[in-house]
């Protein structure tokens, strides 16, 4: 199956996306955020919470002067290490306990700070490389089934029930487990701590939850003879911190979109741009596949109309990811099956879009999201819409396949719902395994013309964005009909200009690192 699309239009779109991202990258290079700095601390080994359950990295950042902050937390913290002789974790605890104040070490020479940090930085990176090697070893030993990789979510709000659900799903055939975050975690400017037993609509992304789940899935993987991947959400106010935790706990994927927070969570755009960049550098290094969030365009507006915006966003996400050093094989661009089930030939449009994405991004592990918006309490009909989605996915060779739940409109999935969803995908994908290979698309037919139209629309959109610049384009509501001012939205106060002497030891190490 192959669509005839104009390669020069594709090239032009890619070039436009690069041009769009370029000035934003300059901005990024000149700024940092509290979340980036907190993740530097976490990388160094700082963890835990202080009074009022405030995480130690937050306490440390909150305690920095604006000037210290603008130089990067590393130097100030390094001074403390050099002076106290404590390990990073202990120093963090001491600061949290109020027994030590970083401000007191302002006089320690910068060189000393840098020197004392070096081994911790090296050890931290070595640890990440180790986790990465561990993943590779396991994948070698416990190979996954061929794609589409069945991906399901757990979201009970209790990590222990989530674990039960995840292990059951793995046994039923799931290859990737996502733990959905508790409602609105992306708006928290800190990462909660410890195991969660009471979340709303999901379970907090915490390092302990990551660990509990990783351990359970490793066991399940050994039992099943297949490595089970674990994923969570980065996008939000804590992208780099979650990327850090994920690297350490060997998550395999992360939701990480360069614009999701801006458009769909009203997070400040500058904050998001800076955060996504550092988080993706970490993701790249830790071998984590990112999943972008283009599905959100489709759930909040008309899916037929939004198709060019989805493609444009994929190009932009790709360009940002390349900037952060990600290879194509780690860039899981998103798409979703959200066209109304009542539209005549809607399936044809879906096939067109899915195949278009597949051809334009041949090496990307595409992430295909299920129908959600048009799902209703009619679980029987819902199961069928999911089946057509499953068929489209196998026909167009999507890589990461989020299984749709027949109860999507009702509740976060029950254990039994998840099994039915997996069985749906298994049945459809097996009975139609090579269908995509065995058919050709009619030249100039409905499907091909739709795909060409989407590409043309994307080209036009990117051209406009390139003209006025990405930040202004977002301000002009060119994406998802949502209007966001450059200095509005949450988390803007956490963005700051880098002082000339700004230093982030991890950024330096990661820049140009190849694994």
């Amino acid at each position, binding site marked *: 199956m192959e669509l005839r699309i104009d390669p020069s239009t594709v090239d032009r779109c890619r070039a436009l996306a690069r041009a769009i991202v370029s000035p934003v990258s300059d901005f990024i290079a000149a700024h940092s955020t509290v979340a980036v700095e907190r993740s530097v601390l976490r990388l160094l080994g700082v963890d835990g919470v202080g009074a009022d359950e405030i995480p130690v990295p937050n306490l440390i950042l909150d305690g920095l002067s604006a000037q210290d902050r603008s130089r990067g937390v590393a130097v100030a913290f390094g001074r403390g290490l050099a002076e106290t002789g404590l390990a990073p974790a202990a120093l963090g605890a001491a600061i949290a306990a109020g027994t030590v104040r970083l401000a007191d070490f302002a006089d320690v020479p910068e060189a000393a700070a840098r020197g004392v940090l070096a081994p911790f930085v090296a050890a931290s990176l070595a640890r990440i490389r180790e986790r990465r090697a561990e993943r590779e070893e396991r994948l070698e030993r416990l190979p996954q089934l061929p794609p589409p990789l069945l991906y399901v979510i757990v979201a009970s*709000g209790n990590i222990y029930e989530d674990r039960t659900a995840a292990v*059951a799903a793995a046994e*039923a055939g799931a290859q990737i487990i996502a733990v959905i975050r508790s*409602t*609105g975690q992306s708006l928290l400017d800190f990462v909660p701590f410890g195991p969660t037993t009471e979340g*709303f609509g999901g379970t907090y992304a915490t390092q302990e939850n990551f660990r509990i789940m990783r351990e359970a899935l490793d066991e399940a993987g050994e039992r099943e003879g297949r490595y089970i991947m674990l994923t969570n959400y980065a996008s939000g106010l804590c992208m780099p911190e979650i990327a850090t935790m994920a690297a350490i706990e060997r998550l395999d994927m992360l939701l990480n979109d360069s614009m999701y927070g801006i458009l769909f969570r009203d997070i400040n755009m500058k904050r998001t741009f800076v955060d996504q960049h550092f988080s993706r550098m970490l993701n790249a290094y830790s071998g984590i596949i990112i999943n972008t969030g283009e599905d959100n365009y489709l759930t909040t507006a008309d899916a037929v109309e939004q198709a060019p915006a989805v493609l444009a966003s994929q190009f932009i996400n790709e360009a940002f990811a390349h900037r952060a050093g990600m290879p194509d094989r780690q860039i899981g661009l998103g798409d979703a099956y959200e066209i109304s089930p009542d539209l005549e030939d809607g399936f044809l449009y879906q096939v067109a879009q899915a195949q278009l994405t597949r051809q334009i991004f041949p090496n990307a592990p595409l992430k295909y999201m299920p129908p959600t918006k048009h799902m209703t309490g009619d679980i029987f009909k819902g199961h069928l819409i999911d089946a057509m989605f499953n068929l489209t996915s196998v026909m167009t060779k999507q890589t990461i396949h989020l299984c749709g739940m027949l109860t999507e409109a009702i*509740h976060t999935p029950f*254990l039994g719902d998840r*099994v039915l969803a997996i069985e749906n995908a298994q049945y459809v994908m097996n009975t139609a395994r090579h269908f995509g290979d065995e058919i050709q698309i009619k030249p100039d037919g409905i499907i091909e013309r739709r795909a060409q139209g989407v590409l043309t629309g994307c080209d036009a959109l990117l051209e406009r964005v390139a003209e006025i610049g990405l930040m202004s384009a977002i301000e002009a509501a060119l994406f998802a009909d949502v209007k966001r001012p450059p200095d509005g939205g949450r988390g803007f106060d956490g963005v700051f200009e880098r002082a000339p002497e700004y230093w982030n030891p991890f950024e330096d190490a990661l820049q140009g690192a190849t694994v």
Partner: protein
Amino acid sequence: MSRIRPYGDATDDGKVQLSFTLPVEWSEAADEAARQLVGKMGFTDVQVVEGRRIAKDFSFFVVYASTAQSIDFATIKAPSAKEHAMSMDEVDAYVQESLGRKIRIAGACIGTDAHTVGIDAILNMKGYKGDYGLERYHSFETFNLGSQIAVEDFVKFAKEHEVDALLASQVVTQKGSDVKNFTALAELLEAEGLRDRVVLICGGPRVTNLMASELGYDAGFGRGTLPSEVAAFVAVTLANRRVATH
């Protein structure tokens, strides 16, 4: 005869389909446990038509059975909030006639709920399924506060802008968060002495008009609501109250 019972393929056969998961490894005993369990629920003629292992220590069942329960349909009270059917133009004319001024209306997703698509469908110009939203009505001045609006902020806004009608949306229902938030809003309005001065409406996919009245709301709108249904209800309710212009 207003007593009704589920209908499978014959009047009063009481046939119901069930499915559920039991936390036991599958075995013939698990099937039997499912059968007895459904029996304990009061069903007869229990047929476990599917029972199978879905994972370690979990089995899934599909069951058909008959219930002896019935409902006297004549006794069901579920007054509809949708009975004042009017088109946009009719509403505009009606409001002009009966109130002679614009109705001020504010909507929000309250609590931590960020599902704005539903309330937007009611308020935004564009509307829902070809039915225009309230912003397009001449007879309404609308304020869409958006998502995750604390109940306190919503009430404060209502006070400051002297709104006639409040539209609160809740889509997330887990752990009863919808009922909690709706209740908090109604109570705060009461406490502030505002309750009687506004038309208070809730909505969301799990909302029913009955539930709304139990929570002290004037009306509740569920899945598939059209903007004009809400507009008509607000207009008629306000007209009936003949509230003097503030």
